[in-house]
């Protein structure tokens, strides 16, 4: 087993970079859509053989056990090379929660199956009436003997149609004093009569989101993770790395490189107006990266991130959108084209970038919610 943390940061970066550059299939680089597991199975097997499926997990559970600085490097290199995140809900979300709050039996059963991708997970949080106001969720789980019986509906469940299991927040006490207090964290198998999945076609024409309907679906009682009615606190405790990850500069940086390609191909740099607007977004990206590295340094020093980290997501997602608008403008009459725009021997998929940028200001807590957080928790504004 490799002791990754024994390497210097630079040596670690080199190793990870070389691994991605030599082993990652070219045709899967910068995938414009979420991959189904079948598409990336062979890549997953390579990662698994190297013990690199779960960078953040402790070594004892089969993870890489990376310290903060190396974890950031791993993600930076992954995004730099356009390596797909894969079907990582298990590794990123449910695994860490089981490691932190699960019983020995739960760890023993679930964790190895996450690593092998025998189980592929999806996240059941949002509901039709509970988006930004997630704590108002109503999908219920009622104890019936050895089982929970689940009724309700989840929505925006990413890749539920390609998942074997769902981890979800469910209401287990409808009389709780505060709505956050009656929520539990529950695991369920997707392949059962009480669950129905329907895909939602996005603006980009992709089927990555789903609705999941629960009609007396069942989950064994031992699938409850942590204490009953403590799911909300647990799910929140999990957001740490997630919050800097979602504000990382890479999406905007990649888009900027592609914008340059189009702009050069279309001679846009002769236009002083375009030059100014390009410089503006390019500097927005560069200065955001400076801010990002301040937060990254905080993590590297072993400090917790505060609510102020929300600012990264606001800035980078809105910059990303602005860049894609410039891409469309640069494409001129080809601005409505589906698929890659050919510029010499390179192709740039303008609309794929544009569509990819749209939900970034919505998911992971809308930018308006992020502003509410900053307003109250950082600026101390009243009410």
């Amino acid at each position, binding site marked *: 087993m490799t002791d990754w943390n024994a390497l210097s940061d630079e040596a670690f970066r080199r190793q990870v970079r070389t691994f991605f550059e030599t082993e990652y299939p070219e045709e899967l680089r910068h995938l414009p859509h979420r991959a189904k597991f079948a598409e990336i199975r062979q890549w997953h097997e390579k990662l698994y053989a190297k013990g690199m499926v779960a960078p953040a997990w402790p070594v004892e559970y089969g993870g890489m056990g990376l310290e903060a600085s190396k974890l950031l490097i791993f993600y930076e290199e992954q995004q730099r090379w356009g390596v797909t995140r894969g079907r990582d809900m298990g590794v990123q979300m449910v695994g860490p929660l089981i490691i932190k709050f699960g019983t020995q039996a739960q760890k023993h059963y679930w964790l190895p199956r996450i690593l092998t991708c025998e189980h592929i997970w999806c996240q059941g949080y949002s509901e039709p009436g509970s988006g930004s106001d997630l704590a108002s969720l109503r999908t219920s789980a009622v104890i019936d003997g050895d089982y929970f019986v689940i009724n309700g509906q989840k929505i925006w469940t990413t890749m539920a149609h390609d998942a074997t299991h769902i981890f979800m927040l469910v209401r287990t006490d409808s009389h709780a004093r505060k709505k956050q207090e009656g929520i539990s964290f529950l695991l369920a198998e997707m392949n059962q009569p009480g669950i129905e999945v329907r895909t939602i076609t996005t603006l980009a024409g992709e089927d990555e989101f789903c609705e999941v309907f629960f009609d007396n679906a069942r989950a064994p009682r031992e699938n409850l993770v942590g204490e009953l009615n403590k799911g909300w606190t647990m799910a929140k405790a999990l957001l740490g790395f997630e919050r800097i990850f979602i504000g990382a500069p890479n999406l905007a940086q990649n888009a900027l490189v592609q914008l340059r390609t189009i702009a050069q191909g279309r001679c846009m740099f002769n236009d002083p107006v375009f030059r*100014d607007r390009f*410089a503006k977004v390019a500097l927005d990206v560069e200065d955001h990266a400076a801010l990002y590295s301040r937060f990254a340094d905080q993590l590297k020093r072993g400090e917790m991130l505060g609510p102020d980290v929300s600012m990264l997501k606001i800035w980078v997602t809105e910059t990303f959108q602005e860049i894609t608008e410039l891409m469309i403008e640069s494409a001129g009459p080809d601005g409505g084209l589906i698929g890659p725009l050919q510029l010499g021997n390179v192709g740039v998929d303008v609309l794929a970038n544009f569509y990819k940028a749209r939900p970034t200001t919505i998911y992971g807590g809308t930018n308006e919610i992020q502003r509410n957080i*900053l*307003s109250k928790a*950082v*600026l101390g*504004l*009243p*009410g």
Partner: protein
Amino acid sequence: MLRGSVRTLFERAGGIARARNARDKGWDRQVMNELAHAGVLGVAAPEAVGGLGMGLTAAGVIVEEVGRALTPEPVVSAIALAIGMIQRVCPGDAMLATAISGKIACALAWQERGLRGYSDQMACRFDGKVLNGSKAWIAGAVGADQLLVVAQNDSKPVLVALDADGKGIYSELRRQSDGSQLCDIGFVDAPGKLLAEGSVVSEALSTVVADATALAAAELVGVSAKALELTLDYVKTREQFGKPIGSFQVIQHRAVDLYVAQQVAEAGVSEVLARMHVFTDPRARAREASRAKARACSTAKRITRESIQLHGAVGYTDEFDIGLFLNRALVLSAWLGDAAYHRARWMDALEANEAGR
């Protein structure tokens, strides 16, 4: 610690109220001497020549405080332009020690007017004894004892020192929005002393202008930081419809956007200051400086304008302090190039850099 002691120094001197006093009285020699005594003027100069040798990062911390306190003294022009120039072209001259110690105040004059703004041609001539020509936009000229003028002798660049109250010097002063004076000077057979000549002058000039540009950015970061603080305090206390206006979501989101912009500016500008010295190539150094100034100008513009709006009608009065920040930001943005100017320069440098590779 550095930040704290400079902040205390400015508070003791009279704080923001000094920005109003300076309209009539100009900057304060006494405060400049105290700064010199604390080592501030030599903060970026090497220890070997009597400075603190703490580099641009420390200088940036100091001038952020200059910005926060709306200090009227020409600190950036003293540190980066005058002392920066002397330390590079004639470190052995006694003038360096006297400038760092605050005994004399120097102002560097290098820009000239053209038909539509900056001139690309250097028309000022020095024949070895006297100087002829004119210089424009000279920061720190009012109250200076010595003028350092970049001129031409034959076709060589030269740096010339003149007594500010000497013969043949005609200055024209025009008032700026923050009460300071914009100074142009004409020289008619003005006697001067040659300090240095040749490429050492032109190379040093591009370095010190880049440093001054980046430090002006840091000063702007200080201006917008304090303006934002005052505005946040105001929206927390000003009540309408029976509650603080800061409890309305529309105000909250606008305040957050200003805060985020300010954080980005602080991070970007301090990253530039921390790595400026790495770039010995003048073009790369100028590119970094442009990045900082473009960011600081656009952020200060946004924060000072929106601060007036968030203050409502009182924001438009001279009585409220917030307007002083707007007026200082106008001057600092115009000095050494505004956001659009520096974005253009940054783009040019980016392309030149890639073409050169």
